[in-house]
């Protein structure tokens, strides 16, 4: 059998009915990630261009300061023209980078990044040559120190690792030339050492701080985007198939279409090989499952499984699908409370705090008939939210506002976990 005769059918990790093939958590998450990846190329750059512009301004100010410093030292330089050349190279590289970043948008191409770094290296070398005989690199270098700051121009256009690595290389180079150029007894002189330390810090720290700010900004954008995308579930019907299931059904339909088409066009020989036959059987099973039972999940299930952040830290137990009964205000309250309670969950960007992971479990139901006083045509749905990793006094005040929108609540703390019992009054589905 030739290879092209085999029908391709990609195995789903999760069939979106909650019936999960393999490791449930991982499967749900990877599906959610696959789903969110489509937009992620766009995501990463949201708003960072504006921050990049700010960085350009800061670099510009620093360059002007460096130039003034350079001009004032003209008489002192043993090789003033080398320093001048360094500044010309640096200016050319900076202007080139700024123009290209405006033109090319989100990301600087690799070769241009290489050119930029090469330019910085040349400027650095020329400046060091200019002042080598003064034996005080930290005190007299100008273009070489501005080169560190210049990395900020690219902070929004290249990955953090690349910027940090470039800053590290620059720092090491600076230390190396300072050592090589140092007078014999210089290291005993506190003033000389302090000047060198200041020079190194002034050129290496700004790009590092820039990376920290940009990374935090990107994270903020991710979290907000994640939240806003999931927020649309608030207006979903009581039972919904969810975006993943709909996508999945479309995918299965397409797979079936291709398979049947291949048979019809005689691309696949009849009778089918056992392998192809099993593909057909599997497809039929998947399709059947989706058609029969695809609509048992509520908005909350979809919200949690579609969100990268909630999916990681929230467990939902809602056997009777009661979450579907909540009205949009109550849903918004529940979702907001969940967000505020897990917002500090460690992410890939911040793995150090993995130890204090916050988890949240939401238990909805069961409905106890006759409990409490309930208006006519309404039922009371008990919701229990249990959160670990958040001390009671560090719970954001917004959480209580949000929970207040769901219904009357009482809270208790036990073993560092916070438990909130909410009585949520909803329309009785039997009356509808």
């Amino acid at each position, binding site marked *: 059998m030739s290879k092209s005769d085999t029908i391709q059918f990609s195995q789903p990790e999760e069939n979106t009915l909650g019936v999960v093939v393999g490791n449930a958590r991982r499967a749900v998450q990877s599906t959610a990630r696959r789903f969110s990846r489509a937009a992620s190329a766009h995501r990463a750059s*949201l*708003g960072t261009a*504006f*921050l990049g512009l*700010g960085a350009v*301004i*800061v670099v510009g100010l620093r360059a002007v300061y460096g130039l003034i410093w350079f001009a004032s030292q003209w008489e002192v330089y043993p090789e003033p023209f080398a320093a001048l050349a360094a500044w010309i190279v640096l200016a050319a590289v900076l202007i080139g980078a700024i123009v290209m970043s405006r033109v090319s948008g989100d990301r600087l191409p690799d070769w241009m990044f290489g050119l930029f770094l090469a330019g910085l290296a040349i400027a650095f070398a020329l400046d060091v040559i200019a002042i080598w005989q003064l034996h005080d690199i930290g005190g007299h270098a100008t273009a070489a120190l501005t080169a560190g700051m210049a990395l900020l121009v690219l902070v929004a256009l290249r990955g953090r690792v690349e910027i940090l690595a470039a800053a590290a290389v620059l720092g090491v180079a600076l230390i190396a030339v300072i050592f090589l150029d140092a007078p014999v007894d210089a290291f005993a002189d*506190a*003033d000389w050492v*302090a*000047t060198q*330390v*200041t020079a190194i*810090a002034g050129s290496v*720290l700004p790009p*590092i*701080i820039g990376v*920290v*700010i940009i990374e*935090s*900004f990107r994270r*903020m*954008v991710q979290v907000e*985007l994640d939240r*806003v*995308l999931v927020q*649309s579930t608030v*207006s979903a*019907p009581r039972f919904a*198939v969810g*975006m993943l*299931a*709909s996508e999945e*059904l*479309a995918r299965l*339909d*397409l797979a*079936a*279409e291709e*398979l*049947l088409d291949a*048979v*019809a*066009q005689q691309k696949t020989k*009849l*009778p*089918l*090989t056992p392998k192809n*036959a*099993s593909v057909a*059987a599997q*497809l*039929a099973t998947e*399709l059947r499952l*989706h*058609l029969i039972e*695809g*609509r048992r999940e509520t908005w909350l299930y979809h919200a949690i499984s579609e969100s990268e952040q909630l999916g990681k830290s929230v467990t939902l137990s809602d056997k009777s699908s009661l979450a579907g009964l909540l009205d949009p205000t109550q849903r918004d309250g529940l979702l907001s409370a969940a967000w505020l309670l897990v*917002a500090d969950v460690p992410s890939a960007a911040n793995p150090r705090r993995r130890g204090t992971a916050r988890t949240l479990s939401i238990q909805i139901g069961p409905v106890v008939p006759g409990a409490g006083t309930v208006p006519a045509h309404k039922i009371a749905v008990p919701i229990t939210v249990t959160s670990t990793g958040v001390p009671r006094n560090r719970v*954001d005040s917004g959480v209580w506002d949000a929970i207040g929108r769901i219904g009357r609540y009482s809270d208790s703390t036990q073993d560092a976990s916070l438990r909130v019992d909410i009585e949520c009054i909803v329309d009785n589905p039997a009356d509808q």
Partner: protein
Amino acid sequence: MDLISKERDRLLQRSARVYGLSFTAVSALCFALPGAVPFPVLLLGIPLYLILAAALVAVGLSRSIWWPVIALLSGLGIVVVTAILVGTPSPSASLAILHITAAGLASLALVLTSSVPRIVLLVVGALAGVVVVAAAEIDSPAQALRSGGTVLVGWGLAALVTVWINAGVPQVAKRIASIGRAHRAERQASELEAQRRQGARLLHDTVLASLTLLAHSGVGVKPEALRQQAAEDARLLRQLRLGTAPQLAEPTETGTIPVVNPEEPVLGTTLESVKQRFGRMGLTVAWHGTGQVLLPSDVLDAFLMALAECLENVRRHSGVTEAHVTITDDDKMVRALVTDAGVGFNIDDIDEAKLGFAESVVGRLREVGGNARLFSAPGSGTTVALEVPRG
């Protein structure tokens, strides 16, 4: 306060912490160099550095305004202690002082723009920094001017960065909100799409029947018939995918099974397509009785499915290649008798569930208010009576 503002504050707090701590470390290094400051100053300075570092760490975690205040006091304290005890600071002590005031403390500007008291603290902090540094360098007016200026520039720069980030957040929030709106529309569309696909039950049933045949490698069915069936199903799926509702095609040519029905579709045309489908798979179906019955689409769906299921059973189990379907109707009900002259079976011997009868036939019909009964005996064929209400 909305989530993005909280996230923004957290971002500024974290940035202030990294910014402040790194320059505080550099300052401490300059301060602690042998000979930079006399020993007593070092002794007083080190605890103040520790307090400053602790306060900066806390700034990264807490929104309380007291942490910036403590950081400011301890940082300025270092400068004051040095100035009072040393007189004219050595160049390295000067640098230590500058690192603290123009960068380490200036980083606090990141968290001091969100309210009036905070802005006041920012201005006070910057001015106090300038004054204290200038006072420390008072012996050399030129140096005092330069240092004071540097402190002012440092605070100004940090404030600029803060204002810039604060200006960027609403922009990005607006864009995210518009993405969110687009996503909501997409969700509704996908929900509709899923409903449309799930609603196309009849189509999916025939697709599933074809897939099941293929799953058995198509054994027992003529390849030509199976191919024709597959082509038909693929065409319907393509129509579903492209968004045009699969239409009632001319029954004689293609034998299409209607998927999205008009209000009261004609039974006859669709019966014809069922007949053709089974014809291709080697079972001749003979129709008797009414050909023109109007039924609501959900009832028709269930009726045809049940009928097709019965015919499938005949094809698989009866051992004959011909089946008879008799359709009768009155004011209330439409009935169909599916009979074959095949091997038959003893009803008591065979579990109904095994034939898929209970689920696929009786279940479907009951959903729409109908029913089904099964009659058979070994050697004398099988009869199934189906009935559905006229709606």
